């Protein structure tokens, strides 16, 4: 369930080697956010560095299923941005609900400033809670 290729050793946003762009402009999406029809902006590699799907491929439902089965956590796709995608998703839930979730989590979580791991756990937990609300 590691990242593809070299990124397995370093977090993506620290990686400045060719295959990935820097954090602010990148189109690296989590596998759960990847949808049919998106185009790969970089080769998808497994943890051994073998190329599994080539850059430029338009992804089908089957590709996405395979990526998940191979345990690949994310892929670089053209023209999408994780933060943008997340914001779009949030628009479908009422702000009061989001506010209530945020309040509950902030009371429970330790201070997040300067704490990269806990900030990421917070972000994912919030996303999952919002998803739960949308589904119910």
């Amino acid at each position: 369930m590691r990242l593809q290729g070299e990124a397995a050793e370093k977090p993506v946003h620290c990686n400045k080697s060719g295959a990935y762009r820097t954090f602010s402009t990148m189109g690296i999406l989590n596998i759960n956010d990847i949808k049919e029809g998106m185009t790969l902006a970089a080769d998808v590699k497994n943890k051994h560095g073998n190329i599994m799907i080539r850059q430029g491929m338009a992804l089908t439902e089957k590709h996405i299923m395979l990526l998940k089965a191979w345990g690949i956590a994310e892929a670089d796709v053209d023209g999408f941005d994780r933060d943008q995608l997340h914001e779009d998703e949030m628009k479908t839930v009422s702000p009061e609900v989001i506010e209530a979730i945020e309040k509950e989590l902030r009371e429970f979580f330790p201070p997040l400033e300067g704490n990269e791991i806990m900030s990421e756990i917070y972000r994912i937990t919030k996303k999952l809670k919002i998803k739960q609300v949308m589904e119910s």
Partner: protein
Amino acid sequence: MKANEIERIVSSLDKIPTLPVIYSKLGKLLQSPDTTIAAVSNIISEDQVIAAKVLKFVNSAFYGFPQRIGSLQRAIVILGFNTIKNLVFATSVFDMFRGMDTDGSFDKKNFWKHCIGCAVASRVLAEAADLRNPDEVFTGGLLHDIGKLVVAVHYPEKYSAVINEVQATGIPLVAAERKVFGYDHCQVGSALAVHWRFPPDTAQMIGSHHLGDGATPARKDIAAVHIGNILCMALGLGSGGEKKLASVNAKAWEFIGLSLSSLELVMDKTVKLYKENTEILEM
């Protein structure tokens, strides 16, 4: 932990239940290099309840085998002696737990859910980090808070006071326990693990899962249980009685060697496996 301290804690707890005999029998059997699959299968079959639970677990989404595994012998062939031993261990402890009753502010049901959540999260982390023993990590996660349960069974009123203080002030549970009892649930847990002759790795996962004051984890499985514990609390899978979430120990995170971006997949999988398997896990 010193031997006399273990003795002091264990001797202060007089109602400690015993592990089912099948586990120690199996342990002895597996020490011999000449043990056959049939012999192992026979021992497990002696306890029909445990045998059924082991099969149920083998057929759960944790392993995702394409076909149903119908017999113990086949399960042993596919999973190997160590994994089977771990499953028997986990189910034996489950059985033991069920007989323990608590009163007062200790919420046994949510505590249970928390243990299962931690077991699932720790196992998912162990798999993601390519650890060689995800099933042992599962058991470690399942039992990480066993000390809480045993103390709550013995001193229901005092333990209610601990929980109430944590809820009122937001201090960490271990701090409140030390104030009231002079020891915390990690120490009790590792003392019990020695008393019950748990595998040493499991004992260490139980005793060290908090990694307080920036302690360095001795092994990756300890780091997995430490992080798994925090993930399941963040996700709200049950409750271990804490008012405030602790931070992940940075050294543990570094040690386990996962990238930040793999966290989303780990947490997603934890929620899914937890939901799909509550029935099996609440056995």
